[in-house]
Protein backbone atom coordinates (compact mmCIF):
# COMPACT_ATOMS: atom_id res chain seq x y z
CA UNK A 1 0.00 0.00 0.00
CA UNK A 2 1.33 3.41 -0.88
CA UNK A 3 2.19 6.17 1.55
CA UNK A 4 -0.45 8.27 -0.09
CA UNK A 5 -3.22 5.84 0.80
CA UNK A 6 -2.02 5.55 4.38
CA UNK A 7 -1.67 9.30 4.76
CA UNK A 8 -5.05 10.06 3.24
CA UNK A 9 -6.72 7.40 5.41
CA UNK A 10 -5.03 8.83 8.49
CA UNK A 11 -5.95 12.38 7.49
CA UNK A 12 -9.56 11.38 6.93
CA UNK A 13 -9.80 9.59 10.28
CA UNK A 14 -7.87 12.06 12.41
CA UNK A 15 -9.63 14.17 14.99
CA UNK A 16 -10.85 17.62 14.00
CA UNK A 17 -10.67 20.92 15.80
CA UNK A 18 -13.60 21.98 17.88
CA UNK A 19 -15.89 24.02 15.68
CA UNK A 20 -15.35 27.32 17.46
CA UNK A 21 -11.60 26.98 17.25
CA UNK A 22 -11.72 26.05 13.61
CA UNK A 23 -13.97 29.01 12.80
CA UNK A 24 -11.69 31.45 14.62
CA UNK A 25 -8.60 30.10 12.92
CA UNK A 26 -10.23 30.24 9.52
CA UNK A 27 -11.54 33.74 10.22
CA UNK A 28 -8.03 34.94 11.10
CA UNK A 29 -6.69 33.66 7.80
CA UNK A 30 -9.67 35.07 5.89
CA UNK A 31 -9.08 38.45 7.51
CA UNK A 32 -5.42 38.41 6.54
CA UNK A 33 -6.30 37.39 3.01
CA UNK A 34 -8.85 40.20 2.66
CA UNK A 35 -6.23 42.64 3.99
CA UNK A 36 -3.51 41.60 1.56
CA UNK A 37 -5.90 41.45 -1.40
CA UNK A 38 -7.47 44.84 -0.70
CA UNK A 39 -4.09 46.50 -0.23
CA UNK A 40 -2.79 45.00 -3.45
CA UNK A 41 -6.03 45.84 -5.25
CA UNK A 42 -5.73 49.49 -4.19
CA UNK A 43 -2.12 49.46 -5.34
CA UNK A 44 -3.07 47.93 -8.66
CA UNK A 45 -5.92 50.40 -9.15
CA UNK A 46 -3.60 53.29 -8.34
CA UNK A 47 -1.01 51.95 -10.74
CA UNK A 48 -3.44 51.50 -13.59
CA UNK A 49 -5.05 54.89 -13.01
CA UNK A 50 -1.72 56.70 -12.80
CA UNK A 51 -0.56 54.89 -15.89
CA UNK A 52 -3.71 55.94 -17.72
CA UNK A 53 -3.40 59.50 -16.46
CA UNK A 54 0.25 59.63 -17.41
CA UNK A 55 -0.48 58.43 -20.91
CA UNK A 56 -3.25 61.00 -21.32
CA UNK A 57 -0.60 63.66 -22.05
CA UNK A 58 0.82 61.46 -24.79
CA UNK A 59 3.29 58.62 -25.04
CA UNK A 60 6.95 58.52 -26.04
CA UNK A 61 7.10 62.31 -26.06
CA UNK A 62 9.70 64.86 -25.13
CA UNK A 63 9.12 68.61 -24.84
CA UNK A 64 12.00 70.93 -25.69
CA UNK A 65 12.15 74.60 -24.72
CA UNK A 66 14.80 76.69 -26.48
CA UNK A 67 16.79 78.56 -23.81
CA UNK A 68 20.11 80.41 -23.61
CA UNK A 69 23.59 79.06 -24.24
CA UNK A 70 25.88 78.62 -21.23
CA UNK A 71 29.00 77.72 -23.19
CA UNK A 72 30.93 79.53 -25.88
CA UNK A 73 30.75 77.92 -29.27
CA UNK A 74 32.84 78.62 -32.38
CA UNK A 75 33.60 82.17 -31.36
CA UNK A 76 30.09 82.84 -30.12
CA UNK A 77 29.72 84.01 -26.54
CA UNK A 78 27.69 82.29 -23.84
CA UNK A 79 24.29 83.74 -22.93
CA UNK A 80 22.85 83.82 -26.43
CA UNK A 81 19.14 83.12 -26.68
CA UNK A 82 18.17 80.32 -29.04
CA UNK A 83 15.18 80.94 -31.28
CA UNK A 84 13.65 78.03 -33.15
CA UNK A 85 11.32 79.14 -35.91
CA UNK A 86 8.20 77.65 -37.42
CA UNK A 87 10.03 76.79 -40.62
CA UNK A 88 12.57 74.72 -38.69
CA UNK A 89 10.01 72.00 -37.96
CA UNK A 90 10.18 70.64 -41.50
CA UNK A 91 13.93 71.11 -41.44
CA UNK A 92 14.16 68.81 -38.38
CA UNK A 93 11.74 66.31 -39.91
CA UNK A 94 13.99 66.02 -42.95
CA UNK A 95 17.06 65.34 -40.84
CA UNK A 96 15.39 63.04 -38.34
CA UNK A 97 12.95 60.99 -40.42
CA UNK A 98 12.95 58.20 -37.84
CA UNK A 99 10.89 60.36 -35.47
CA UNK A 100 7.21 59.53 -35.47
CA UNK A 101 6.31 63.20 -35.18
CA UNK A 102 7.80 66.66 -34.65
CA UNK A 103 5.52 69.44 -33.51
CA UNK A 104 6.05 73.09 -32.81
CA UNK A 105 3.99 75.05 -30.32
CA UNK A 106 3.35 78.77 -30.17
CA UNK A 107 1.41 80.21 -27.29
CA UNK A 108 -0.43 83.36 -26.38
CA UNK A 109 -3.02 84.48 -23.84
CA UNK A 110 -6.01 86.32 -25.35
CA UNK A 111 -9.55 87.05 -24.21
CA UNK A 112 -12.10 84.89 -26.00
CA UNK A 113 -15.69 86.10 -26.26
CA UNK A 114 -18.84 84.14 -26.83
CA UNK A 115 -22.06 86.06 -26.44
CA UNK A 116 -21.67 87.91 -23.16
CA UNK A 117 -19.06 85.53 -21.76
CA UNK A 118 -15.41 86.51 -21.85
CA UNK A 119 -12.57 84.23 -20.77
CA UNK A 120 -8.86 84.84 -20.86
CA UNK A 121 -7.66 81.92 -22.93
CA UNK A 122 -4.37 80.19 -23.50
CA UNK A 123 -4.16 79.62 -27.24
CA UNK A 124 -1.75 77.18 -28.81
CA UNK A 125 -0.78 77.24 -32.46
CA UNK A 126 0.49 73.89 -33.66
CA UNK A 127 0.49 71.22 -36.38
CA UNK A 128 -2.47 68.96 -37.24
CA UNK A 129 -0.74 65.74 -36.07
CA UNK A 130 -0.46 67.26 -32.59
CA UNK A 131 -4.03 66.12 -31.88
CA UNK A 132 -3.06 62.47 -32.13
CA UNK A 133 0.33 62.75 -30.38
CA UNK A 134 -0.95 64.81 -27.48
CA UNK A 135 -4.21 62.89 -27.18
CA UNK A 136 -6.55 65.72 -27.99
CA UNK A 137 -9.37 63.34 -28.88
CA UNK A 138 -12.59 65.07 -29.92
CA UNK A 139 -15.95 64.42 -28.28
CA UNK A 140 -18.29 62.75 -30.79
CA UNK A 141 -19.56 65.33 -33.28
CA UNK A 142 -16.30 67.28 -33.38
CA UNK A 143 -12.85 66.98 -34.91
CA UNK A 144 -9.27 68.19 -34.54
CA UNK A 145 -8.00 70.48 -37.28
CA UNK A 146 -6.38 68.92 -40.34
CA UNK A 147 -3.82 69.67 -43.06
CA UNK A 148 -6.45 71.49 -45.09
CA UNK A 149 -7.17 73.86 -42.21
CA UNK A 150 -3.43 74.43 -41.84
CA UNK A 151 -2.88 75.00 -45.57
CA UNK A 152 -5.85 77.35 -45.85
CA UNK A 153 -5.03 79.20 -42.65
CA UNK A 154 -8.58 78.68 -41.52
CA UNK A 155 -9.77 80.32 -38.34
CA UNK A 156 -10.91 77.09 -36.72
CA UNK A 157 -10.44 76.31 -33.03
CA UNK A 158 -10.37 73.10 -30.93
CA UNK A 159 -11.35 73.69 -27.30
CA UNK A 160 -10.29 72.02 -24.09
CA UNK A 161 -13.35 70.64 -22.26
CA UNK A 162 -13.03 73.11 -19.34
CA UNK A 163 -12.80 76.02 -21.75
CA UNK A 164 -15.87 74.76 -23.60
CA UNK A 165 -17.80 74.50 -20.34
CA UNK A 166 -16.73 77.99 -19.20
CA UNK A 167 -17.63 79.68 -22.48
CA UNK A 168 -20.62 77.68 -23.65
CA UNK A 169 -22.11 76.19 -20.49
CA UNK A 170 -24.40 73.37 -21.49
CA UNK A 171 -24.57 74.40 -25.15
CA UNK A 172 -22.75 72.26 -27.72
CA UNK A 173 -19.90 74.52 -28.90
CA UNK A 174 -19.29 72.71 -32.20
CA UNK A 175 -20.34 74.91 -35.12
CA UNK A 176 -20.53 78.03 -32.96
CA UNK A 177 -18.30 80.99 -33.51
CA UNK A 178 -16.32 82.81 -30.84
CA UNK A 179 -14.21 85.93 -31.04
CA UNK A 180 -10.50 86.04 -30.34
CA UNK A 181 -8.79 89.41 -30.77
CA UNK A 182 -11.90 90.50 -32.62
CA UNK A 183 -11.53 87.74 -35.20
CA UNK A 184 -14.22 85.11 -35.45
CA UNK A 185 -13.15 81.50 -34.94
CA UNK A 186 -15.29 78.49 -35.72
CA UNK A 187 -15.33 75.81 -33.02
CA UNK A 188 -14.72 72.47 -34.73
CA UNK A 189 -14.27 70.19 -31.73
CA UNK A 190 -14.10 69.83 -27.96
CA UNK A 191 -11.54 67.60 -26.28
CA UNK A 192 -12.74 64.48 -24.44
CA UNK A 193 -12.33 64.78 -20.69
CA UNK A 194 -9.11 63.26 -19.42
CA UNK A 195 -7.31 63.17 -16.09
CA UNK A 196 -3.86 64.42 -16.90
CA UNK A 197 -0.75 63.71 -14.85
CA UNK A 198 2.02 65.41 -16.76
CA UNK A 199 1.51 68.93 -18.02
CA UNK A 200 3.44 72.02 -19.02
CA UNK A 201 1.90 75.51 -19.17
CA UNK A 202 -1.37 74.12 -17.82
CA UNK A 203 -3.83 71.29 -18.28
CA UNK A 204 -4.93 70.52 -21.83
CA UNK A 205 -8.54 70.97 -20.76
CA UNK A 206 -7.82 74.67 -20.14
CA UNK A 207 -6.37 75.66 -23.49
CA UNK A 208 -7.56 76.00 -27.07
CA UNK A 209 -5.66 74.89 -30.14
CA UNK A 210 -5.58 76.49 -33.61
CA UNK A 211 -3.56 75.74 -36.77
CA UNK A 212 -0.05 77.17 -36.65
CA UNK A 213 -0.48 78.95 -39.99
CA UNK A 214 -3.50 80.80 -38.60
CA UNK A 215 -1.60 81.60 -35.39
CA UNK A 216 1.34 83.06 -37.32
CA UNK A 217 -0.90 85.23 -39.47
CA UNK A 218 -3.10 86.38 -36.62
CA UNK A 219 -0.44 87.09 -34.00
CA UNK A 220 2.54 87.79 -36.27
CA UNK A 221 4.76 85.20 -34.64
CA UNK A 222 7.62 83.15 -36.02
CA UNK A 223 9.39 81.87 -32.91
CA UNK A 224 8.31 78.57 -31.34
CA UNK A 225 7.81 78.32 -27.60
CA UNK A 226 8.26 74.55 -27.57
CA UNK A 227 9.18 71.66 -29.75
CA UNK A 228 7.47 68.31 -29.10
CA UNK A 229 9.00 65.16 -30.54
CA UNK A 230 7.54 61.67 -30.55
CA UNK A 231 9.75 58.61 -30.98
CA UNK A 232 8.73 55.18 -32.34
CA UNK A 233 10.18 53.27 -29.44
CA UNK A 234 10.69 54.66 -25.92
CA UNK A 235 14.15 53.07 -25.80
CA UNK A 236 15.31 55.42 -28.56
CA UNK A 237 14.40 58.62 -26.72
CA UNK A 238 17.77 59.27 -25.13
CA UNK A 239 19.64 58.81 -28.39
CA UNK A 240 17.13 60.86 -30.36
CA UNK A 241 17.38 63.78 -27.94
CA UNK A 242 21.16 63.72 -28.30
CA UNK A 243 20.81 63.61 -32.06
CA UNK A 244 18.39 66.55 -31.99
CA UNK A 245 21.01 68.69 -30.25
CA UNK A 246 23.64 67.55 -32.72
CA UNK A 247 21.34 68.60 -35.56
CA UNK A 248 20.24 71.91 -34.04
CA UNK A 249 23.52 72.90 -32.36
CA UNK A 250 25.44 73.81 -35.56
CA UNK A 251 22.34 75.46 -37.05
CA UNK A 252 21.74 77.78 -34.07
CA UNK A 253 25.32 78.02 -32.96
CA UNK A 254 25.39 76.18 -29.66
CA UNK A 255 27.45 73.36 -28.27
CA UNK A 256 25.34 70.17 -28.55
CA UNK A 257 26.56 69.27 -25.03
CA UNK A 258 25.22 72.55 -23.60
CA UNK A 259 22.19 71.52 -21.60
CA UNK A 260 21.06 75.13 -21.03
CA UNK A 261 20.57 75.77 -24.72
CA UNK A 262 17.63 73.41 -24.95
CA UNK A 263 15.67 72.57 -21.79
CA UNK A 264 14.22 69.14 -22.16
CA UNK A 265 11.46 67.19 -20.47
CA UNK A 266 11.93 63.55 -21.38
CA UNK A 267 8.56 61.96 -20.57
CA UNK A 268 9.92 58.45 -21.17
CA UNK A 269 12.44 58.97 -18.41
CA UNK A 270 9.97 60.51 -15.99
CA UNK A 271 7.43 57.76 -16.67
CA UNK A 272 10.10 55.24 -15.73
CA UNK A 273 10.56 57.05 -12.44
CA UNK A 274 6.81 56.96 -11.86
CA UNK A 275 6.78 53.26 -12.66
CA UNK A 276 9.56 52.60 -10.18
CA UNK A 277 7.74 54.54 -7.47
CA UNK A 278 4.59 52.54 -8.19
CA UNK A 279 6.46 49.27 -8.04
CA UNK A 280 7.81 50.42 -4.69
CA UNK A 281 4.30 51.22 -3.48
CA UNK A 282 3.04 47.82 -4.66
CA UNK A 283 5.89 46.10 -2.90
CA UNK A 284 5.22 48.03 0.29
CA UNK A 285 1.51 47.20 0.19
CA UNK A 286 2.33 43.56 -0.53
CA UNK A 287 4.67 43.38 2.45
CA UNK A 288 2.14 45.02 4.78
CA UNK A 289 -0.53 42.61 3.52
CA UNK A 290 1.76 39.61 3.83
CA UNK A 291 2.59 40.60 7.41
CA UNK A 292 -1.11 40.73 8.24
CA UNK A 293 -1.53 37.32 6.69
CA UNK A 294 1.47 35.98 8.60
CA UNK A 295 -0.29 36.95 11.83
CA UNK A 296 -3.13 34.68 10.70
CA UNK A 297 -0.53 32.00 9.96
CA UNK A 298 0.88 32.37 13.46
CA UNK A 299 -2.68 31.79 14.69
CA UNK A 300 -2.89 28.56 12.72
CA UNK A 301 0.52 27.42 13.97
CA UNK A 302 -0.50 28.27 17.51
CA UNK A 303 -3.70 26.22 17.24
CA UNK A 304 -1.79 23.35 15.68
CA UNK A 305 0.75 23.40 18.50
CA UNK A 306 -2.12 23.21 20.98
CA UNK A 307 -3.62 20.35 18.99
CA UNK A 308 -0.32 18.47 19.04
CA UNK A 309 -0.23 18.86 22.80
CA UNK A 310 -3.82 17.67 23.11
CA UNK A 311 -3.24 14.70 20.87
CA UNK A 312 0.09 13.69 22.36
CA UNK A 313 -1.30 10.39 23.55
CA UNK A 314 -3.03 9.74 20.24
CA UNK A 315 0.24 10.37 18.40
CA UNK A 316 2.09 8.16 20.88
CA UNK A 317 -0.43 5.36 20.31
CA UNK A 318 -0.08 5.61 16.55
CA UNK A 319 3.69 5.46 16.90
CA UNK A 320 3.48 2.43 19.18
CA UNK A 321 1.31 0.72 16.60
CA UNK A 322 3.96 1.32 13.98
CA UNK A 323 3.32 4.72 12.37
CA UNK A 324 6.38 6.15 10.66
CA UNK A 325 7.41 9.77 11.09
CA UNK A 326 5.94 10.95 7.83
CA UNK A 327 2.58 9.35 8.59
CA UNK A 328 2.42 11.57 11.66
CA UNK A 329 3.81 14.70 10.00
CA UNK A 330 1.94 14.84 6.72
CA UNK A 331 -1.62 14.59 8.07
CA UNK A 332 -0.78 17.41 10.49
CA UNK A 333 0.63 19.57 7.72
CA UNK A 334 -2.47 18.81 5.66
CA UNK A 335 -4.68 19.83 8.53
CA UNK A 336 -2.86 23.15 8.99
CA UNK A 337 -2.93 23.69 5.24
CA UNK A 338 -6.65 22.94 5.10
CA UNK A 339 -7.50 25.62 7.67
CA UNK A 340 -5.26 28.08 5.85
CA UNK A 341 -6.66 27.32 2.42
CA UNK A 342 -10.28 27.36 3.55
CA UNK A 343 -9.64 30.72 5.23
CA UNK A 344 -7.80 31.91 2.14
CA UNK A 345 -10.64 30.90 -0.18
CA UNK A 346 -13.11 32.66 2.09
CA UNK A 347 -10.94 35.80 2.16
CA UNK A 348 -10.55 35.76 -1.60
CA UNK A 349 -14.31 35.50 -2.05
CA UNK A 350 -14.91 38.42 0.31
CA UNK A 351 -12.21 40.55 -1.32
CA UNK A 352 -13.53 39.79 -4.80
CA UNK A 353 -17.04 40.80 -3.74
CA UNK A 354 -15.71 44.02 -2.16
CA UNK A 355 -13.74 44.92 -5.27
CA UNK A 356 -16.68 44.06 -7.51
CA UNK A 357 -18.98 46.27 -5.43
CA UNK A 358 -16.55 49.17 -5.90
CA UNK A 359 -16.81 48.96 -9.66
CA UNK A 360 -20.12 50.79 -9.34
CA UNK A 361 -18.47 53.89 -7.91
CA UNK A 362 -18.08 56.69 -10.46
CA UNK A 363 -14.46 57.76 -10.26
CA UNK A 364 -14.09 59.79 -13.47
CA UNK A 365 -15.80 62.87 -12.09
CA UNK A 366 -14.40 62.68 -8.59
CA UNK A 367 -11.29 64.83 -8.11
CA UNK A 368 -9.65 62.42 -5.64
CA UNK A 369 -10.75 59.09 -7.06
CA UNK A 370 -9.79 60.07 -10.61
CA UNK A 371 -6.20 60.01 -9.34
CA UNK A 372 -6.49 57.08 -6.91
CA UNK A 373 -8.25 54.84 -9.37
CA UNK A 374 -10.48 51.90 -8.59
CA UNK A 375 -9.26 48.86 -6.61
CA UNK A 376 -8.50 46.14 -9.13
CA UNK A 377 -7.63 42.49 -8.65
CA UNK A 378 -5.41 40.80 -11.18
CA UNK A 379 -4.29 37.27 -11.88
CA UNK A 380 -0.82 38.12 -10.55
CA UNK A 381 -2.29 39.37 -7.29
CA UNK A 382 -4.31 36.17 -6.98
CA UNK A 383 -1.27 34.01 -7.66
CA UNK A 384 0.95 35.99 -5.30
CA UNK A 385 -1.62 35.72 -2.51
CA UNK A 386 -2.18 32.00 -3.16
CA UNK A 387 1.56 31.36 -2.99
CA UNK A 388 1.85 33.24 0.31
CA UNK A 389 -1.17 31.39 1.67
CA UNK A 390 0.26 28.02 0.62
CA UNK A 391 3.63 28.84 2.14
CA UNK A 392 2.10 30.04 5.40
CA UNK A 393 -0.21 27.01 5.50
CA UNK A 394 2.63 24.54 5.03
CA UNK A 395 4.87 26.27 7.56
CA UNK A 396 2.06 26.68 10.09
CA UNK A 397 1.42 22.95 9.84
CA UNK A 398 4.99 21.76 9.48
CA UNK A 399 6.56 23.08 12.67
CA UNK A 400 3.83 21.75 14.98
CA UNK A 401 3.88 18.46 13.05
CA UNK A 402 7.61 18.20 13.55
CA UNK A 403 7.05 18.56 17.26
CA UNK A 404 4.38 15.84 17.02
CA UNK A 405 6.81 13.51 15.30
CA UNK A 406 9.42 14.11 17.98
CA UNK A 407 7.06 12.82 20.67
CA UNK A 408 8.50 9.91 22.60
CA UNK A 409 5.83 7.22 22.51
CA UNK A 410 7.20 5.49 25.59
CA UNK A 411 6.59 8.60 27.67
CA UNK A 412 3.01 9.12 26.54
CA UNK A 413 1.51 5.67 26.75
CA UNK A 414 1.65 4.81 30.40
CA UNK A 415 -0.90 5.87 32.96
CA UNK A 416 -3.36 8.74 32.85
Amino acid at each position, binding site marked *: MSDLTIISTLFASSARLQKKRAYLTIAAIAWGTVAILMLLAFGEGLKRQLDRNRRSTGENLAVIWPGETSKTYKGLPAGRAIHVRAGDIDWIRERMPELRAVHGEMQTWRPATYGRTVKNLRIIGTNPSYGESRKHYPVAGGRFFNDEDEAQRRRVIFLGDEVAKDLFGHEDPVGKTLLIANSPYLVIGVMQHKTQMGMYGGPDSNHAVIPMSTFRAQFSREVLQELVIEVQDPAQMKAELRKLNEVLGPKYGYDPGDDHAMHTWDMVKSSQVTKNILTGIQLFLGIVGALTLIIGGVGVANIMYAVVKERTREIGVKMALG*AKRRWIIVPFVLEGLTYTLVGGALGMTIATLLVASMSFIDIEHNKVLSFLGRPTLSLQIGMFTSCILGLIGVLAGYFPARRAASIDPAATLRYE
Partner: protein
Amino acid sequence: MNRNGSIIHMSGIRKVYDTGKVKVEALKGVDLEIRKGEMVAIVGPSGSGKSTLMNLLGCLDTPTAGSYELGGDDVAGVTRDELAEIRNRRVGFVFQNFNLLPHISSQENVEMPMLFGGVPVRERRERARDLLTKVGLGDRVDHKPTELSGGQMQRVAIARALAMDPAIILADEPTGNLDTSSGSDIMSIFNELWKQGRTLVIITHDPALAKRASRVVEIRDGVVMNDHMN
Protein backbone atom coordinates in the same frame (compact mmCIF):
# COMPACT_ATOMS: atom_id res chain seq x y z
CA MET B 1 13.46 -16.88 15.69
CA ASN B 2 16.60 -18.36 17.12
CA ARG B 3 17.63 -21.95 16.77
CA ASN B 4 16.72 -22.65 20.37
CA GLY B 5 13.20 -21.29 19.82
CA SER B 6 13.59 -18.06 21.76
CA ILE B 7 11.58 -15.09 20.61
CA ILE B 8 13.16 -12.59 22.93
CA HIS B 9 16.84 -12.65 23.56
CA MET B 10 18.28 -9.91 25.77
CA SER B 11 21.80 -9.92 27.04
CA GLY B 12 23.64 -7.36 29.12
CA ILE B 13 20.94 -4.77 28.59
CA ARG B 14 21.68 -1.46 30.22
CA LYS B 15 19.58 1.68 30.03
CA VAL B 16 20.82 5.02 31.27
CA TYR B 17 18.56 8.06 31.28
CA ASP B 18 20.67 11.15 30.84
CA THR B 19 18.75 14.26 31.85
CA GLY B 20 21.77 16.47 31.41
CA LYS B 21 22.76 16.91 35.03
CA VAL B 22 21.80 13.55 36.44
CA LYS B 23 22.35 10.14 34.96
CA VAL B 24 19.96 7.47 36.11
CA GLU B 25 20.76 3.85 35.39
CA ALA B 26 17.37 2.18 35.16
CA LEU B 27 18.61 -1.21 33.97
CA LYS B 28 22.01 -2.46 35.05
CA GLY B 29 22.59 -5.48 32.88
CA VAL B 30 19.53 -7.58 32.21
CA ASP B 31 19.72 -11.00 30.57
CA LEU B 32 16.38 -12.37 29.52
CA GLU B 33 15.35 -15.14 27.21
CA ILE B 34 11.72 -15.80 26.37
CA ARG B 35 10.71 -18.77 24.29
CA LYS B 36 7.84 -19.11 21.93
CA GLY B 37 4.62 -20.09 23.71
CA GLU B 38 5.63 -18.83 27.13
CA MET B 39 3.43 -16.64 29.28
CA VAL B 40 5.79 -14.54 31.33
CA ALA B 41 4.84 -12.21 34.16
CA ILE B 42 7.37 -9.51 34.92
CA VAL B 43 6.92 -8.28 38.44
CA GLY B 44 8.65 -5.81 40.69
CA PRO B 45 8.00 -2.75 42.80
CA SER B 46 7.71 0.68 41.24
CA GLY B 47 11.08 2.14 40.38
CA SER B 48 12.48 -1.32 39.82
CA GLY B 49 12.99 -0.79 36.07
CA LYS B 50 9.86 -2.67 34.98
CA SER B 51 8.63 0.13 32.80
CA THR B 52 12.01 0.62 31.20
CA LEU B 53 12.18 -3.07 30.45
CA MET B 54 8.70 -2.93 28.98
CA ASN B 55 9.69 -0.01 26.70
CA LEU B 56 12.76 -1.88 25.53
CA LEU B 57 10.88 -5.15 25.01
CA GLY B 58 8.25 -3.27 22.97
CA CYS B 59 10.90 -1.44 20.95
CA LEU B 60 9.50 1.87 22.10
CA ASP B 61 13.01 2.71 23.21
CA THR B 62 16.51 1.41 22.53
CA PRO B 63 19.00 0.19 25.12
CA THR B 64 22.14 2.14 26.02
CA ALA B 65 24.17 -1.03 25.90
CA GLY B 66 23.62 -4.72 25.38
CA SER B 67 21.98 -6.65 22.58
CA TYR B 68 18.36 -7.37 21.96
CA GLU B 69 16.91 -9.69 19.37
CA LEU B 70 13.18 -9.75 18.84
CA GLY B 71 11.88 -12.60 16.69
CA GLY B 72 15.29 -12.77 15.06
CA ASP B 73 15.58 -9.01 14.34
CA ASP B 74 18.48 -7.21 15.97
CA VAL B 75 17.10 -4.02 17.39
CA ALA B 76 20.43 -2.29 17.92
CA GLY B 77 21.21 0.67 15.69
CA VAL B 78 17.98 0.88 13.74
CA THR B 79 16.31 4.13 12.77
CA ARG B 80 13.12 5.40 14.34
CA ASP B 81 11.11 4.39 11.29
CA GLU B 82 12.62 0.90 11.26
CA LEU B 83 11.84 0.60 14.94
CA ALA B 84 8.25 1.59 14.14
CA GLU B 85 8.09 -1.15 11.56
CA ILE B 86 9.43 -3.73 14.04
CA ARG B 87 6.80 -2.66 16.57
CA ASN B 88 4.16 -2.93 13.91
CA ARG B 89 5.06 -6.48 12.88
CA ARG B 90 6.45 -8.06 16.05
CA VAL B 91 4.69 -6.51 19.03
CA GLY B 92 1.06 -6.31 20.09
CA PHE B 93 0.56 -3.81 22.89
CA VAL B 94 -2.08 -3.95 25.61
CA PHE B 95 -1.93 -1.01 27.98
CA GLN B 96 -3.32 -0.36 31.42
CA ASN B 97 -5.21 2.66 30.14
CA PHE B 98 -6.24 0.94 26.88
CA ASN B 99 -4.87 3.75 24.68
CA LEU B 100 -7.60 3.47 22.09
CA LEU B 101 -8.12 6.44 19.75
CA PRO B 102 -11.31 7.99 21.13
CA HIS B 103 -12.82 9.52 17.98
CA ILE B 104 -12.84 6.40 15.79
CA SER B 105 -14.80 3.15 16.09
CA SER B 106 -13.58 -0.13 17.58
CA GLN B 107 -13.33 -1.47 14.06
CA GLU B 108 -11.08 1.42 12.94
CA ASN B 109 -8.99 1.09 16.10
CA VAL B 110 -8.31 -2.54 15.31
CA GLU B 111 -7.57 -1.67 11.69
CA MET B 112 -4.95 0.93 12.61
CA PRO B 113 -1.89 -1.40 12.94
CA MET B 114 -2.90 -3.12 9.69
CA LEU B 115 -3.09 0.28 7.97
CA PHE B 116 0.53 0.89 9.03
CA GLY B 117 1.41 -2.65 8.03
CA GLY B 118 0.12 -2.13 4.52
CA VAL B 119 -2.73 -4.61 4.68
CA PRO B 120 -5.27 -3.98 1.89
CA VAL B 121 -8.48 -2.34 2.99
CA ARG B 122 -10.82 -5.30 2.39
CA GLU B 123 -8.61 -7.72 4.29
CA ARG B 124 -8.18 -5.15 7.02
CA ARG B 125 -11.90 -4.79 7.49
CA GLU B 126 -12.57 -8.52 7.51
CA ARG B 127 -9.79 -9.30 9.92
CA ALA B 128 -10.76 -6.52 12.32
CA ARG B 129 -14.34 -7.81 12.38
CA ASP B 130 -13.14 -11.39 13.00
CA LEU B 131 -10.88 -10.34 15.82
CA LEU B 132 -13.59 -8.26 17.48
CA THR B 133 -15.95 -11.20 17.22
CA LYS B 134 -13.34 -13.45 18.81
CA VAL B 135 -13.00 -11.17 21.83
CA GLY B 136 -16.78 -11.12 22.10
CA LEU B 137 -17.44 -7.67 20.63
CA GLY B 138 -18.94 -8.69 17.29
CA ASP B 139 -21.89 -6.41 18.02
CA ARG B 140 -19.76 -3.41 19.01
CA VAL B 141 -17.68 -2.84 15.86
CA ASP B 142 -19.15 0.59 15.17
CA HIS B 143 -19.06 1.79 18.76
CA LYS B 144 -16.54 4.39 19.73
CA PRO B 145 -14.36 3.66 22.78
CA THR B 146 -16.26 6.24 24.84
CA GLU B 147 -19.41 4.14 24.34
CA LEU B 148 -17.78 1.01 25.77
CA SER B 149 -17.06 -0.19 29.30
CA GLY B 150 -13.51 -0.57 30.57
CA GLY B 151 -13.51 -4.33 30.05
CA GLN B 152 -14.85 -3.89 26.52
CA MET B 153 -12.21 -1.29 25.74
CA GLN B 154 -9.49 -3.63 26.91
CA ARG B 155 -10.92 -6.36 24.68
CA VAL B 156 -10.79 -3.97 21.70
CA ALA B 157 -7.18 -3.29 22.64
CA ILE B 158 -6.45 -7.03 22.65
CA ALA B 159 -8.06 -7.41 19.23
CA ARG B 160 -5.88 -4.52 18.05
CA ALA B 161 -2.77 -6.17 19.55
CA LEU B 162 -3.55 -9.33 17.56
CA ALA B 163 -4.19 -7.50 14.28
CA MET B 164 -0.72 -7.96 12.81
CA ASP B 165 -0.33 -11.46 14.25
CA PRO B 166 2.75 -10.38 16.25
CA ALA B 167 5.47 -12.54 17.76
CA ILE B 168 4.64 -11.35 21.26
CA ILE B 169 1.78 -9.73 23.09
CA LEU B 170 3.16 -7.19 25.51
CA ALA B 171 0.67 -6.26 28.23
CA ASP B 172 1.43 -3.52 30.71
CA GLU B 173 -0.75 -3.83 33.83
CA PRO B 174 -3.65 -4.96 31.62
CA THR B 175 -6.09 -5.30 34.51
CA GLY B 176 -4.90 -2.30 36.49
CA ASN B 177 -7.85 -0.09 35.52
CA LEU B 178 -10.51 -2.80 35.60
CA ASP B 179 -12.81 -4.18 38.26
CA THR B 180 -12.20 -7.76 39.40
CA SER B 181 -14.72 -9.42 37.12
CA SER B 182 -13.61 -7.57 33.94
CA GLY B 183 -10.03 -8.19 34.99
CA SER B 184 -10.56 -11.89 35.21
CA ASP B 185 -12.34 -11.84 31.82
CA ILE B 186 -9.24 -10.28 30.34
CA MET B 187 -7.02 -12.85 32.02
CA SER B 188 -9.20 -15.61 30.60
CA ILE B 189 -8.65 -14.21 27.12
CA PHE B 190 -4.91 -14.12 27.76
CA ASN B 191 -5.02 -17.73 28.94
CA GLU B 192 -6.93 -18.63 25.80
CA LEU B 193 -4.29 -16.94 23.64
CA TRP B 194 -1.55 -18.73 25.53
CA LYS B 195 -3.26 -22.06 24.94
CA GLN B 196 -3.35 -21.20 21.22
CA GLY B 197 0.43 -21.04 21.39
CA ARG B 198 0.98 -17.31 21.55
CA THR B 199 3.77 -15.71 23.52
CA LEU B 200 2.68 -13.25 26.19
CA VAL B 201 4.67 -10.92 28.40
CA ILE B 202 2.63 -9.32 31.15
CA ILE B 203 4.01 -6.62 33.35
CA THR B 204 2.20 -6.43 36.65
CA HIS B 205 2.55 -5.93 40.34
CA ASP B 206 -0.55 -8.00 41.07
CA PRO B 207 0.57 -11.33 42.59
CA ALA B 208 -2.73 -13.01 41.69
CA LEU B 209 -2.13 -12.19 38.05
CA ALA B 210 1.48 -13.30 38.18
CA LYS B 211 0.35 -16.65 39.54
CA ARG B 212 -1.54 -17.41 36.36
CA ALA B 213 1.59 -17.03 34.24
CA SER B 214 3.84 -19.94 33.37
CA ARG B 215 6.93 -18.07 34.46
CA VAL B 216 7.61 -15.12 36.75
CA VAL B 217 10.54 -12.79 36.32
CA GLU B 218 11.19 -10.46 39.22
CA ILE B 219 13.00 -7.20 38.61
CA ARG B 220 14.55 -5.15 41.36
CA ASP B 221 16.92 -2.21 41.15
CA GLY B 222 17.48 -2.72 37.46
CA VAL B 223 18.48 -6.38 37.53
CA VAL B 224 16.66 -9.70 37.35
CA MET B 225 16.40 -10.89 40.95
CA ASN B 226 14.40 -14.01 40.46
CA ASP B 227 13.27 -16.05 37.48
CA HIS B 228 11.19 -19.13 38.13
CA MET B 229 8.58 -21.32 36.52
CA ASN B 230 5.17 -21.56 38.12
